[in-house]
C-alpha cells in the first residue's frame, strides 16, 4: 500500500474513533499537539503508560469487589483515579463508564458495581484495541517514509 493510501486510511480511522463512536474526545487531540521533534514518541509513551496503569487499576478493582465485605471507599478511590487518567488521555467512553460506576459506589450497590466493572473493562479493552490499531497505522506510515497527517476535527 502506498503512503497516500495509508495516510487516508489513518485519517478515516481516526475520524471514526472521534465522530461516530465517541471513543476519543478533544483531549486526545491535545496530546497529539504536544508531540514534536523533541518528543516524537510522546503519544505512544503516554498511551502505553495509560494501558499499564489502567490494567493495574482494573485488577485492583476486581480484587476489591471480590471481598466478602467490600470496601466501597477503596473501590471509589480506584475508579476516581481511572476517571482522571482516562479523561486526561481523552478516552471518553471509559471516563463515562467511571462516572456511572462512582454513583453506584456511593449507593454501595454490589450488583450494580459489579456490572459497572464489566462495563468499564469492556470500554477499556475496546479503546485499547482502537488506539493500538491507530498507532500501528501511524508506525507503518512513518516506516514507509511518510508523515502523520494532521486531523482536522473542528472541536
Amino acid at each position, binding site marked *: 500500500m502506498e503512503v497516500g493510501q495509508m495516510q487516508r486510511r489513518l485519517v478515516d480511522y481516526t475520524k471514526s474513533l472521534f465522530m461516530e463512536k465517541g471513543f476519543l474526545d478533544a*483531549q486526545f487531540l*491535545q*496530546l497529539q*499537539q*504536544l508531540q514534536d521533534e523533541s*518528543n516524537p514518541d*510522546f503519544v505512544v*509513551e*503516554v498511551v502505553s*503508560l*495509560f494501558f499499564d*496503569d489502567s490494567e493495574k487499576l482494573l485488577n485492583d478493582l476486581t480484587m476489591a469487589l471480590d471481598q466478602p465485605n467490600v470496601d466501597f471507599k477503596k473501590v471509589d*478511590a480506584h475508579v*476516581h*483515579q481511572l*476517571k*482522571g*487518567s482516562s*479523561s*486526561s*488521555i*481523552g478516552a471518553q467512553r471509559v471516563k463515562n463508564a467511571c462516572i456511572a460506576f462512582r454513583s453506584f459506589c456511593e449507593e454501595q450497590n454490589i450488583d450494580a458495581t459489579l456490572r459497572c466493572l464489566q462495563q468499564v473493562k469492556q470500554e477499556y479493552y475496546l479503546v485499547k484495541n482502537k488506539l493500538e490499531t491507530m498507532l500501528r497505522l501511524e508506525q507503518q506510515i512513518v516506516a514507509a517514509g511518510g508523515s502523520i497527517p494532521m486531523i482536522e476535527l473542528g472541536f
Partner: protein
Amino acid sequence: MNSSNGNGSMSTASSSGAWDGRDQFPAGLRVLVVDDDPTCLMIFEKMLKTCLYQVTKCNKAETALSVLREHKNGFDIVISDVHMPDMDGFELLKHIDSEMDLPVILISADATKQIVMKGVTYGACDYLIKPVRIETLKNIWQHVVRKKARNTLLEIKY
C-alpha cells in the same frame, strides 16, 4: 552610575525575586507538580514544559514537601492533585501555607461544588478539573504575580 530606567529602583535580593528581572517571564516559571497518577503526571509535565516552564514532578505529597523544604525559594508555584493515598492535596496545601509563601493550585477529576469550595476555603489559589488543557496552564503565572503583588502591598502597609 549608569541608570537605564528612570524610576531609580534598585533590584533587590527580594525574598523570592528570581522571576522579577527575567525578560522571558513567564518562561522559566518554576513549577512543582504533584500527582500519584503516572499518566496524568506525564501529561502535565509535557504540557508545562511546552509552556516553557521549569518543571519538577513528584508522585507523592510527602516527597513534594521534602523537596519544597530543601529548596526554599526554589519554586514559584505548586500544582497538586487532591486525591492521593498518603497525604492528600488539602493537607499538602495546609503545610505549604503554614511553612512557605507559595501559590498552590489544586487539580482533581472531582468537580462537585463542595470539594471546589473546600479547596478555595483552604486557600488554593485555583481549583482545576481534569482533564486540564494546556491553555489553562499557560495562564498560571498570573497567580504568582498576584500573590507577589499582594505581599508587596502588605509590606508597604506595615
